[in-house]
């Protein structure tokens, strides 16, 4: 960038494509993440740190499962249910997966309607997302109670390696907590959308910053991340 820049600082300058553009963005001595507001960038960085948290949980589970000399309980059987007399392996987890994916779909559409300033549809879709999330947590509570009733504890279980219980409660518990916080976050933002806070740029009570529809997308990032983590838990803990 040898030519003097005459454009106002707020406007994004054209950048070379590919790796040269990457280097230019990082070396620009301005904001690194252009086209992305601070709120979105910070949510991404938070999600990156959360990735490491869940990465460590899954790694701990992998180490426990690989290093035990006792057979690991078969998740396909542990999470099976009798529905109408038929034995369905892993069915509850499959339903939970579909519920969470559906909530991601409605969230993506809520973000879309938010930027179109369609208050009703945005709020309705966010509430639907929260409802799916609450359903997921409810099913998880059912799953936990069932396993606890069957004798699964963090220090042992009737079917095999003792580490099964601790890995299960730690990983799904932490994920369920994330879903719960996501539902609360969704309800708060949905209320603001419904009330029209972002039409009038009403200031938030906590940061006193002007409310913008972008918060819907930032909430969406968090929500999709929760779904993303479930994809990995589903693959490694339930299916493996």
């Amino acid at each position, binding site marked *: 960038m040898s030519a003097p820049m005459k454009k106002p600082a707020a406007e994004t300058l054209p950048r070379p494509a590919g790796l040269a553009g990457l280097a230019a963005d990082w070396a620009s001595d301005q904001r690194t*993440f252009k086209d992305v507001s601070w709120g979105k960038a910070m949510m991404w960085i938070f999600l990156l740190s959360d990735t490491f948290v869940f*990465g460590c949980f899954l790694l701990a589970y992998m180490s426990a499962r690989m290093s035990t000399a006792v057979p690991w309980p078969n998740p396909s059987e542990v999470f099976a249910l009798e529905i109408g007399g038929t034995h369905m392996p892993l069915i509850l987890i499959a339903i939970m997966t579909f519920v969470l994916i559906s909530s991601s779909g409605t*969230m993506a559409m809520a973000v879309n309607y938010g930027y179109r300033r369609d208050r009703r549809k945005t709020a309705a879709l966010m509430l639907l997302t929260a409802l799916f999330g609450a359903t997921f947590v409810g099913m998880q509570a059912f799953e936990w109670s069932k396993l606890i009733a069957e004798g699964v504890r963090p220090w042992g279980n009737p079917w095999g390696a003792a580490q099964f219980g601790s890995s299960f409660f730690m990983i799904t518990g932490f994920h369920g907590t994330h879903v719960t916080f996501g539902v609360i976050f969704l309800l708060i933002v949905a209320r603001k959308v419904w009330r029209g806070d972002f039409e009038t740029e009403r200031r938030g009570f906590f940061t006193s910053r002007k409310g913008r529809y972008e918060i819907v997308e930032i909430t969406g990032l968090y929500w999709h*991340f929760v779904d993303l983590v479930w994809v990995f838990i589903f693959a490694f803990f339930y*299916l493996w």
Partner: protein
Amino acid sequence: MAHAETHPAQTAAAHTEHQQHPIKLYLLVWGLLFILSALSYLVDYFGLQGYLRWSLILIFMMLKAGLIVAVFMHMAWERLALIYAIILPPLLVLVFVALMVSESNYVLFTRLTFFGGGE
């Protein structure tokens, strides 16, 4: 450009910060995620075992994760500076995985050697 008339009060830079894509795309991805989840469930339902099972699980997992990050989280439309900052660090976890695989094998070896298979 559906977002052309939105946010007139904001600066020009804010325009590009908006992620506006057709609803149809989201519905398509939603459908694909349903199909991929159903397929990964079927891997368990049909009781596939061994390397076939593990590779199918990993393929479906990566496809689902990729769709969610790329489309639902709009990563496909972000600049490389952000994409690499977010995607590359988690890949380093694979180094940690390699370390722990080696460590777990050693722990299993010591357990079998000194405890005769119990615990």
